[in-house]
């Protein structure tokens, strides 16, 4: 997918993104960031901060009121098909098309992304084995647990192996081994010159995995940069304390 990369190796770019729900509820206000090839970026913030709204604008679910989102240099509003070919998206809710079996669902996604049969077979086998889902592939998804559905969403999304991964709360519901596998795969994917953007509430995950972190609240970006820089700017505090201070969480004292 080298042809999908831009001149500056930026794979995901948000330029002054804003979003208003209804008539006046501003969920995201002038959000900008960029993610280069080889980076893993964590998106942190309290509930209702606007993380999912930003992800929805990046993936073409919502059209920004202002600004633009680019995936591999393609504007998601102006060139939606080209942009969508360049990312894999895992939504926070895995309850989709539950009447299909796991395999039928993966085949559906593979058909949409036009993955040749000779490529999809080894990839699906590998991904299913890594997530311990091989035995469940021919079972209808309605019989899966939440975690199994989440794993299947990840397998289907990663089957087409695009340069950018956009994952909304991907660790929710995963067992420790599956969470470990996913983190490993995120590292491997980034190491191959691709990028990963994921939202999370678990700061330890962000701390261990991310090259950069974006902290947001009330639709605004509060911090963008490396964890090291953040820690250096707040000596003597751990990441959780810094995060709570940034979002002005009242501890009750």
């Amino acid at each position: 997918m080298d042809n999908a990369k831009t001149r500056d190796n930026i794979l995901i770019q948000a330029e002054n993104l804003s979003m208003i729900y209804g008539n006046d509820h501003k969920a995201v206000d002038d959000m900008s960031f960029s993610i280069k090839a080889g980076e893993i970026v964590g998106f942190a913030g309290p509930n209702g901060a606007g993380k999912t709204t930003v992800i929805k604008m990046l993936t073409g679910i919502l059209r920004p009121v202002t600004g633009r989102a680019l995936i591999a240099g393609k504007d998601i509003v102006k060139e939606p098909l080209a942009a969508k070919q360049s990312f894999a998206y895992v939504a926070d809710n895995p309850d989709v098309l539950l009447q299909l079996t796991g395999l039928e669902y993966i085949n559906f996604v593979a058909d949409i992304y036009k993955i040749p049969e000779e490529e999809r077979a080894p990839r699906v086998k590998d991904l299913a084995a890594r997530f311990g889902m091989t035995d469940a592939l021919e079972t209808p998804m309605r019989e899966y647990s939440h975690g199994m559905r989440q794993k299947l969403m990840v397998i289907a999304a990663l089957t087409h192996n695009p340069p950018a991964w956009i994952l909304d709360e991907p660790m929710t519901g995963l067992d420790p081994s599956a969470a470990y596998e996913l983190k490993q795969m995120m590292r491997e994917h980034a190491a191959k010159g691709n990028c990963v953007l994921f939202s999370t509430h678990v700061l330890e995950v962000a701390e261990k995995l991310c090259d950069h972190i974006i902290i947001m609240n009330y639709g605004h970006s509060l911090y963008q940069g490396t964890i090291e820089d953040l820690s250096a700017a707040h000596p003597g505090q751990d990441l959780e304390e810094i995060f709570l201070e940034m979002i002005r969480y009242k501890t009750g004292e």
Partner: protein
Amino acid sequence: MNNVRTLFNVYRANFEMPTPKKGLKGSLYLSFGLIAFFCIMLPCCLIVGYMTYIMSLALMVEHNTINALLSEVHIISAFSMIFSMLVVFNVLFFSSDREYMVTLPLSHWQLLSAKFWHTYMAESVMEFMVLISMFIGHFVAAAHSYGAGNALGPVQILSAIIGTVVTPLLPLAYCTILSLVLMSVLKKVRSIKVFYHVSTILLLVFVAIFLLSFRGMGGVNVTNYMDSLSSGANLFLQICNILFFTVPLLGKAIGSGSILSLLLYLAGNAAVVAVMLFLGYLLYQEGLYTAGALGSCKKKADVSKLNLKSTSVFGTYVKKELKVLLRTRAYASNCFYINLLWPVGVLILFSLSENNENILRFLDLYREGYSRAALILLLIIIFIAFVASALNSLSSTAFTREGAHVDIIKYIPVPYETQMYAKAAVALIVTYPALLLTVILASFYVGWSALWSVYYCLLALSALILSIVTGLAMDSAAPFTLWDDEYSALRGNLNSFFNMAVIMVLAIFVCGIAFLAFELTPLGIVPVHLLILGLLIVLDVIAVIFGRKIILRNMEELY
């Protein structure tokens, strides 16, 4: 495989409601399926086919070959459009898979096409069967009038086959076009409530036009209707000939075997679908963005004014059910407001037929104490009381409506029995007032005494209880909780359909007992009334005792 076909196949696979295949439940579902086929689908088709035959035969005597068939196809198309409007709007813009599908590398018109074709297939099965029946009815009448050689030419038969498949396309395409335009025109008004209201207003406007178009016939009776059809002066026919402009071409192809008309019919439908797809290409993406950005006005809560009053467990469960019903658009229209159909229907029937000789004569006979008139009225009330509860699907979707969160029934610390009674109470609270109002209005027009009014209120209640227990028992056995949107919970739910079939059988059984008791025994009409009420009360007691056990066992075995 192209993307539209891939998507279509996925929607088709995902739409089917899983039903028990083995054991007692499997056998029961198979039986319900057979009952549904033989008690709803087949009788409907036979009635429609016979009506077409009779009407066509009558008009063919006056050398009008096709207007009877045309008027029936128009009625089907109009109903299809009325009932599909909100479904299509919801499927296109508010289905739960929207946020997932739009992230895939599919063009928006491919998504629109797949959704449109899937809705067409899913919504049109019954329509196909009814259309086939109409065409058969027409052909039998034509063969009778003009001879089989003239009526059953290859072009006529081919036209009927094509017409069966193609006719449901036009109303659905119109619904899609209206939905796209509606979403596009209103994109500046970013409040979800406005969208709901506008779509409902559009629906009411269409229904009003549909009803108003009957005014051209003068008095509403069969003779006037047939005369206006024969002369071509029927306003409904005239309006629909313009609105569903391809249907007259089909009529010509079937009536006279004109290949040119058949080709024009196909071209006309193809043109409308092409316009729909073109509009979809222009407007659908914009509509999806608009749908994603909708919200209701956010009000800041004032903690001091929050209503935090406690309610009993039963009361709060009932309140929760009622709030979900009223605040979910699909449920509000299909389960709640649909109950108004009966009182409004009675009002319209008696208002429109103030000068109708047949109805006035019937009422006179009833008031003079003519027993057969009283029997007919009894049968009508029994039938309405049974069908009202089945039609609103309240009991037959009581568990289905919980959706993916059906587990709540299991994990909340409320006895299953309380939950079951709360669900039954909701069905009763919503349905019975409408039936009461229907009886009161009917008593006003018919002139029942207070005692007879009370009798009919009790009769309606007894039938309703039986219907509610049946619906709850069926839905608790295998609730369909994996729906994509609330409309699927109602449309894709076989429990509702099967429940309707079972209720029809019950209604026919009770009506049959009443009829036979009156015709074959020396009982007078008053004892027959009492016998029927007694029978229903006994059936209620049996149903409540056994139904209660079945429902509780089903709830325990749920998942």
